């Protein structure tokens, strides 16, 4: 096990290295550049050349990449192009906890609602609860998040205009600011998890060993939790790995609609202005989180089903 973890952590370095290279390359090839973004649509070759030189962007690709990597190896994520002189870490460090808190809350709610709903539906497949919950879960899942967000905001406007209690439609800092973004983030995930759980449970309940357990007279509860759920959880755990990782960098869309100052909020602006040091760093953090979470997922498999060998 220790060797397994060590090897996977070693592969982390490989993944991070590759992803920085790929991001750097794509950034280098993609049209649009940070200097022009700073200058708006004004065109002045002299000013352009001067700024380009100042930011080191007139150097060849390999030199730029080498400079970046040597910085990262020394723990320096670089300085933002757009936020003149501000270290990237400065921009990201305040956003990470915000994104993580918000995302984990939403993910927690989704798990607490989605998994039990999916299980209950599977117990009596094709029953009334199954039918209603399946349709309901698919509906909240299939309506795009920005529609749910917008409708919730409009509801607050209507409530406010009719002097009813209303929630803030954007902002951060007070507990009531959490409600709408958490609802929107949780809605789709809950629908997804419920549907996945239901299907996965149905699959497992049809397996021979579960039927054997039933035949041996095991109680319904014991069959559900001891035999079925553990195996049914494998897909859930699989999707949770990357989900938790994504939570750290926040939801680009939701954070922007509700002005939540998380990493996603910073990242969207960075992509729009080609602020590569920031994009690079967000990617790096996400990649590290994905690798670590997928490692944890693989370890969780062996807990759920001890026959699975980690190799």
């Amino acid at each position, binding site marked *: 096990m220790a060797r397994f973890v060590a090897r996977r952590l070693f592969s982390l370095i490989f993944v991070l290295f590759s992803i920085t290279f790929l991001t750097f390359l794509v950034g280098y090839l993609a049209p649009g550049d940070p200097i022009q973004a700073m200058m708006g649509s004004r065109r002045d070759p002299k000013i352009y050349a001067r700024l380009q030189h100042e930011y080191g962007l007139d150097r060849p690709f390999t030199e730029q990449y080498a400079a970046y990597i040597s910085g990262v190896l020394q723990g320096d994520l670089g300085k933002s192009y757009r936020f003149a002189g501000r270290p990237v870490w400065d921009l990201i460090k305040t956003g990470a906890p915000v994104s993580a808190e918000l995302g984990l809350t939403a993910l927690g709610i989704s798990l607490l609602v989605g998994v039990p709903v999916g299980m209950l539906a599977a117990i009596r497949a094709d029953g009334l609860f199954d039918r209603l919950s*399946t349709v309901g879960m698919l509906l909240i899942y299939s309506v795009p998040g920005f529609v749910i967000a917008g409708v919730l905001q*409009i509801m607050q406007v209507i409530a406010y205009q009719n002097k009813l209690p209303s929630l803030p439609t954007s902002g951060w800092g007070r507990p009531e600011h959490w409600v709408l973004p958490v609802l929107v983030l949780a809605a789709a995930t809950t629908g997804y998890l419920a549907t996945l759980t239901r299907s996965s449970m149905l699959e497992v309940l049809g397996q021979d060993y579960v039927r054997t357990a039933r035949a041996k007279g095991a109680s319904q509860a014991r069959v559900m939790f001891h035999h079925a759920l553990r195996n049914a959880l494998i897909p859930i755990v699989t999707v949770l790995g990357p989900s938790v990782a994504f939570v750290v960098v926040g939801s680009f869309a939701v954070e922007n609609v509700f002005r939540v100052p998380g990493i996603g909020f910073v990242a969207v602006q960075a992509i729009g202005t080609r602020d590569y040091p920031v994009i690079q760093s967000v990617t790096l953090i996400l990649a590290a989180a*994905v690798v670590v979470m997928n490692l944890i997922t693989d370890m969780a498999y062996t807990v759920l089903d001890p*026959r699975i060998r980690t190799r």
Partner: protein
Amino acid sequence: MRRLKKNPVAFAALIVLAAMCVFAVLGPWLHRVDPALQDVDNLRAFPSALHPLGTDDRGRDTLARLMIGLRVSLLVAVAVEAFNVVVGAGLGLAAGYFGGAVDFVVSRLADMLFAFPGILLAILISAVFGSSIGTLGDGAGRLLLVSGSLALVGWPLMARYVRGQTLALRERPWIDGSRALGASDVAILLRHILPNLGNLVIVSATLDVAGVVVSEATLGLLGLSAQPPQTSLGKMIVEAFGYITLNWTQVFWPSLALSVLVLAVSFLGDGLREKV
């Protein structure tokens, strides 16, 4: 088919899906209104005899647009999910069953794609191929681009689902039994593992459809997808959402179509599951 007949819900879902395809393909011959025609005296109209589903904020007929929009969304969804199932599930199966170097390469590639800033990639693809492939065959090139981009970032999740399940299946006693009896890897994969994965693959692909339809609209903004006068369900929702307080019906119709599509595909998938 026989299985479907026993499951009325799935059978109904199949009929709904078929009806949607007919609506998308044959509809424009029945409702002969130019979906690009802008009637500036009838902006954001509610449903009427002239415009059965109303008009959008450029005075275009929503029913006519829904037909051509559904076509684009269906095409993209089918293309992306086909790739997802073949490539994503295939690689996941290989990674889970063979482990070792195969697993390492597939899993790490998936990790990287998970983390890669997809928007940036889309911008690059649009810029590099937009003017070459993108202009092919009356918009078909752009659909190819958008499907390719979505498929590229979509398969890792499918691969990880399948890999996780395969890891568990591989260690089941009956597999060991077959192996002891001298069954080849291919035979084991085809006869024992693949049939047990169908359900998960169907559910995952089904759930992905809603995401694909909406992402297609986002990429459309970057110039990757079908361009005017073409449209798609996602694009219709995005556009109409801006004026939802003036005319909610224009968000409602494409959203309804999307939800019905997702529900029908899900119930059909449900019905296809082996019920022993």
